[in-house]
């Protein structure tokens, strides 16, 4: 019988169809293997552990997205203008890095506990692409306009390149949160 919602793989094995066995797993198989593992199942079926992980993931947004907002407003020349860009970053950095560390650890644990749901979710795929784009944005910023930061560090309004980096960063992180939230609304 076919269940309305099923996460199990029911493909025939290579051995039974006479094809040579592969030594590597497909992504689908890997996610299913994770899903069936002891600790993944334990977290997924837990009373307290999963809510604590998921709750921490969302609460740490205050630290991560909050400080990103702070720094991006400075890059946009919209806020914190009495501080140089470097000073703003020095103040923001410990909170930002702590926030991101919590997001990454809890995010990995969430994926680990629900690998098939993440595999099947278009929103999750979009979220990963957006995260990659956020990383690329930071890399491009650091390797271009940020090299000459000493020239514009104290400017009330940084140069266009810095403003674009800040604006893109803000937009992308807000989209990351939105898409992550939308993952809950598909059956």
């Amino acid at each position, binding site marked *: *019988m*076919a*269940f*309305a*919602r099923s996460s199990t793989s029911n493909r025939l094995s290579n051995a039974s169809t006479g094809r040579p066995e592969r030594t590597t797993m497909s992504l689908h198989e890997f996610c299913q293997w994770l899903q069936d593992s002891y600790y993944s199942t334990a*977290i*997924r*079926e*837990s*009373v*307290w552990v*999963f*809510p604590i992980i*998921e709750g921490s993931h969302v609460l740490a947004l205050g630290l991560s997205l909050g400080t990103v*907002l702070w720094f991006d*407003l400075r890059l946009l020349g*919209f*806020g914190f203008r009495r501080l140089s860009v470097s000073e703003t970053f020095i103040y923001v950095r410990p909170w930002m890095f702590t926030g991101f560390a919590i997001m990454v650890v809890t995010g990995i644990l969430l994926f680990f*506990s*629900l690998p098939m749901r993440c595999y099947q979710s278009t929103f999750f795929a979009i979220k990963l692409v957006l995260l990659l784009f956020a990383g690329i944005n930071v890399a491009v910023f650091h390797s271009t306009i940020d090299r000459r930061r000493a020239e514009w560090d104290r400017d009330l309004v940084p140069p266009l390149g810095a403003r674009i980096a800040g604006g893109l960063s803000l937009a992308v992180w*807000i989209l990351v949160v*939105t898409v992550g*939230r939308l993952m*809950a*609304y*598909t*059956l």
Partner: protein
Amino acid sequence: MARSLVVFVAMILGVWGANLAAHHAEAAQFDAAKPVNVTGTIAKVEWTNPHIWFYVNVTDNAGKVTTWGFSGGPPGMLLRRGITRDVLKIGTVVHVQGSRAKDGSNNASGERVTLPDGRNVFTASAEDVGTASQQQR
């Protein structure tokens, strides 16, 4: 001061726009105007976060079997209501009330489950869902 208010308003508008679509996951995916009332045998139970899922095989008068999927609250929330995973056992004949999924599939929010011994349990993930389970009270 003024700039921080601008940022605040921008955030409110952004969040409000996103939230218009969904306050509760229940209301977003399940339609309270399409109640579901079925009796059948529990075939599969996924006692998982973020929502439990239980599947019920319903046989109609013609003998055709349809599998309905019902979504409920998380294990922790159900445990606080006194519902453990042994309450929904495979093979038990139950009557389930819920609200049908908006996409029209044979899935619904599982709100009230009546067990063979007459016990009635509230398995929904929110207190203010559905018309089917509310009318029972």
